[in-house]
C-alpha cells in the first residue's frame, strides 16, 4: 500500500512537472521585459514556496513529537526538512543564475535572498547535529527543539533585513504591489503542486529509511547488552 502511494505520488509529480516544463518552455510567450530567462519565475518561486511550506510542516511534526513522544513524527520531521532543503537550494541556485543574467551579479544581500540563505543555514545546522547524537530519544527531542527555534527565527531575520530598506534588489512589484499575468498563474500553481507531490514521495522514502535506521540502532544496542 505504502509502496503504491510513493510510486503514485512520485510518478504523478514527475509527469506533471514534465508537462509543465513543456508548457513553460514551448507554449508560454517570453516575459516582455526580461525575455526567456523571465520564465525562471515559474520554477524559482514555486520551489521557494514548496520549501517554506515543508519547513512549517516539519515544525508541526516537531511540536507533535514533543507532545506525544511518537518517533514517527521525528522521522517525518527530518525527512520533510531534508526535502525542504533541496527545494531551498533549487530556489537559491535558480535565483542566482537569474540574478547573474538580469542584475549582473550572482549574489546580493537582498531581503529575500538573505532570508532563504539563513533558512538553509539554520536547518543545515539541524541536519549536521543529528548524526552527532547517538541516543534516539535525545536525538529526536533536541532536533525538535532546534527545528522550533529555527522556525521562530525566520520571521525575525525577515523583519531585521526589511527594517533597512537599502538591502533590497528585487523590484518593487515583486515584493509588494504586482500580480502575475493570468496566463502564468496556472503553470505557477502546477509547478508548486508538482514539487509538493515529488517532495511528498521523497519524504516518504526518507521516513522509511529513518525508521529502518532507528530499528537497526536499537537491535545493535540489544546485541551489545547481550
Amino acid at each position: 500500500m505504502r509502496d503504491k502511494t510513493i510510486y503514485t505520488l512520485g510518478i504523478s509529480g514527475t509527469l506533471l512537472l514534465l508537462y509543465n516544463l513543456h508548457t513553460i518552455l514551448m507554449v508560454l510567450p517570453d516575459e516582455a521585459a526580461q525575455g526567456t530567462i523571465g520564465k525562471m519565475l515559474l520554477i524559482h518561486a514555486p520551489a521557494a514556496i514548496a520549501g517554506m511550506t515543508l519547513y512549517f510542516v516539519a515544525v508541526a511534526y516537531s511540536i507533535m513529537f514533543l507532545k506525544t513522544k511518537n518517533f514517527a513524527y521525528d522521522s517525518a520531521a527530518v525527512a520533510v526538512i531534508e526535502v525542504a532543503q533541496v527545494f531551498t537550494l533549487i530556489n537559491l541556485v535558480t535565483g542566482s543564475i537569474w540574478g547573474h543574467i538580469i542584475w549582473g551579479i550572482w549574489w546580493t544581500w537582498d531581503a529575500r535572498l538573505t532570508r532563504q540563505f539563513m533558512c538553509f543555514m539554520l536547518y543545515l545546522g539541524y541536519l549536521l547535529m543529528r548524526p552527532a547524537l547517538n541516543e534516539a530519544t535525545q536525538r529526536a527531542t533536541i532536533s525538535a527543539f532546534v527545528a522550533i527555534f529555527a522556525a521562530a527565527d525566520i520571521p525575525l531575520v525577515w523583519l531585521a533585513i526589511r527594517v533597512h530598506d537599502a538591502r533590497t534588489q528585487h523590484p518593487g512589484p515583486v515584493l509588494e504591489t504586482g500580480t502575475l499575468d493570468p496566463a502564468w498563474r496556472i503553470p505557477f500553481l502546477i509547478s508548486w503542486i508538482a514539487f509538493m507531490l515529488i517532495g511528498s514521495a521523497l519524504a516518504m522514502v526518507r521516513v522509511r529509511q529513518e525508521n529502518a535506521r532507528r530499528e537497526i540502532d536499537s537491535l545493535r544496542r540489544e546485541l551489545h547488552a547481550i
Partner: protein
Amino acid sequence: MKQGLLSALFIARKDLRTEFRTKEALNASVSFALVVLVLFSFAFDLGRDEFYDISGGLLWLVYVFAGALIVNRSFIREVPNDCLDVLIASPMPAWSLFLGKVIASFVLLMIVELVSLPVYGLLNNIHWVDSFWPHLGLMILATWGITITGVAFSAVTVNVRLRELMLPVLHYPMLIPLLIGAMQISTALLKGDGGDLSADLRLVVVFDAMFSALSLYLIEFILVG
C-alpha cells in the same frame, strides 16, 4: 514561581562563585576578546571616519565570539562527576536551573564586554564615553539575547559529539536578527547619529522576549525529557 526564581538565583550564585574561584572562562574570554580586537586593527586599514561606520559591527563580533566561550562552559562544567544528573534530579524545576545558568553567563559576558569596550575605544580611537549609558542599555538587552539562546544551545549540545563545533553552527545563524539590530544601534551611538533607532530596538526586544519565552518553556523537554 517564587521558589523557582530563588532556585535560579541560587544556581547563578553557585556558578559565579565557581567561576570567580578559577576564572577559567572569564580569563579565556577576556584574552580572546583582546586578541580579536588586535587582529581587527591589523585586518582593517581604514581612516577614522570610515572606521566609525563599521565600529558597531566589529564590536558585536568581538562580543559574540567571546560570548561563545562563556556560554559553552555553562552546562559542560556540570558534566564531570555527574553533577548535571544531580541538578536535574533535584526538586527545582528545569527552567530554574536554566535561568540560573543564563543569569551567571549574562553577568560574566557583561564583565567581558565592559572590559573590552574601553580597550576597543583606545585601540581604534573611538569615543565611547559620551554614549556609554545608552550603550550600556543596549548591551544589557542584546547580551541577554546572546546568553539565553547560547545557554539553551549549550544545554542542547552538552551530550553531542564535537559540541565545541556544533554550538557555533547552531547558535550564530540564530543570532543574525539580534546582531543586525545591535550592530546598527551601536554604530549610530558611537558615531553620535541621532537617527530613528526604534525599529532596531524593537527587533532586539522582540528577539529577547520571543526566545526567553521559548527557551524557558522548551528547556524542560531538553533537560528532563
